[in-house]
């Protein structure tokens, strides 16, 4: 349960708490997204490797006297990495969303660099005068997140019908 809490901890709130201390910017944004994702990916990889380790081909390799490291790196890893690739592709929209949100709050990407989230933030400041800046800033975000979501779903259906969307 403790793990679920860490996983569920809203990255947005973490960004607001930590971003200003480190000054925001691309590096902090990346650090946050990576730090909050690593445990989840580690858990998926763990169960995937465990599943592969009990496969017959691993037993055969062991019987042939192959070293542990070689079995893991050459044979288990390529077979176990599939779910991670699918999850990663399904996570792309989540990262785009997180970037947009964090930059909108002013603790992510900062000018003179730019991003869609920053466009939203800047557009929202003028929303009283004209709505078109935020509308224009939001459309590519919607299209990109939708597009990558459908891509992720299609990849999952093609390669691993059993892997459900995480809950």
């Amino acid at each position: 349960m403790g793990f679920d809490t860490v996983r569920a901890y809203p990255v947005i709130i973490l960004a607001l708490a930590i971003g200003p201390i480190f000054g925001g910017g691309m590096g902090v944004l990346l650090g946050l997204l990576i730090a909050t994702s690593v445990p989840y990916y580690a858990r998926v990889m763990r169960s995937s490797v465990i599943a592969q380790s009990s496969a017959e081909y691993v037993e055969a390799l062991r019987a042939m006297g192959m070293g542990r490291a070689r079995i893991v790196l050459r044979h288990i890893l390529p077979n176990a990495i599939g779910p991670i690739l699918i999850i990663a592709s399904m996570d792309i929209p989540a990262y785009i969303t997180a970037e947009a949100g964090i930059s909108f709050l002013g603790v992510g990407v900062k000018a003179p660099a730019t991003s869609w989230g920053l466009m939203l933030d800047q557009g929202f400041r003028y929303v009283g005068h004209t709505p078109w800046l935020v509308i224009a800033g939001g459309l590519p975000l919607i299209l990109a997140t939708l597009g990558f979501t459908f891509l992720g779903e299609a990849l999952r259906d093609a390669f691993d019908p059993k892997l459900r969307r995480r809950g």
Partner: protein
Amino acid sequence: MFGYILRRIALGCAVLLLAISTLYVIVQAAPGDPASAMLGPKATPAIKAAFAEKLGLDQPMPVQIARYVGSVLSGDLGTDLRSRRPVTEVLAAHAPYTVELILAALVIAAGLGIPLGCAAAVRRNSFFDRAIGLLSVSLISVPPVIIAIYGMLLFSAALGWLPAIGAGEGLAERLHHLILPAVAVGIGWVGYIARLVRASMIEVLSANYIRNARAFGLAEGRIVYRYALRTAVAPTVTVLGVGVGYMLGSAVFAEIVFARPGIGKLMYDAVILRNYPVTLGAVLAATTLLVAATTLADILNALIDPRFKESRE
């Protein structure tokens, strides 16, 4: 059952304590000294030294953590640098707005998601089922900040149906002001819940006891809504408990866009004004809400479906 509930609450408290300590360590480990981070760039070295001594920053880390946790537990979160009021008082004034927003979002997510999921499971592979599937995927992927902004532009600015700003006074006004933000926070979860309920409903409907109920000649509607739904809804309760965390994140945007005086808006304003005690307090409040929600979800689940309790132990 009682023992399980007690253990679950104890675990929740432990997680919370760990979260408070972690937060403290992260803040202290940040580059630059915490005194200047908290006091802002204009503080002189003398003020900084006094501040560090006052907060006990010269003590070893475990002592600092223990002192911080102790002061949090005794309800002392420091003073709002701007209004000079205790942070706990400021939090108490803002928290109800966030809690009611999250509750309303949960009602929307479950109230629409569960029936839609059931209907999709019963009419599996029909056009309706596919449409619900497509809708769920689309709703999940659109960033909540965009839903909030576009919702405000459409329903407040262009159509003028719903208020754009504030939280309103009196029950009717408050509810009226709650609609748009709650939809912005909850709508993404409608599709997610619908998908989840659909999947677990399909599984439950193929169980032996349902086949038994059919063999006894019970009406299909009664089977689905009286017997199957109770089991099928259990995973949804867990997901909604975890979902409160994500909703807290979306609530930050909804509160900023609709200028609601909740915890998220408080946190955002505090970050901009470098009002660090308030930021930390708001983060703690959000964390507490999150841990309380996951704990409550697990307890509810154990009450709905006793098998769940055993599987988690």
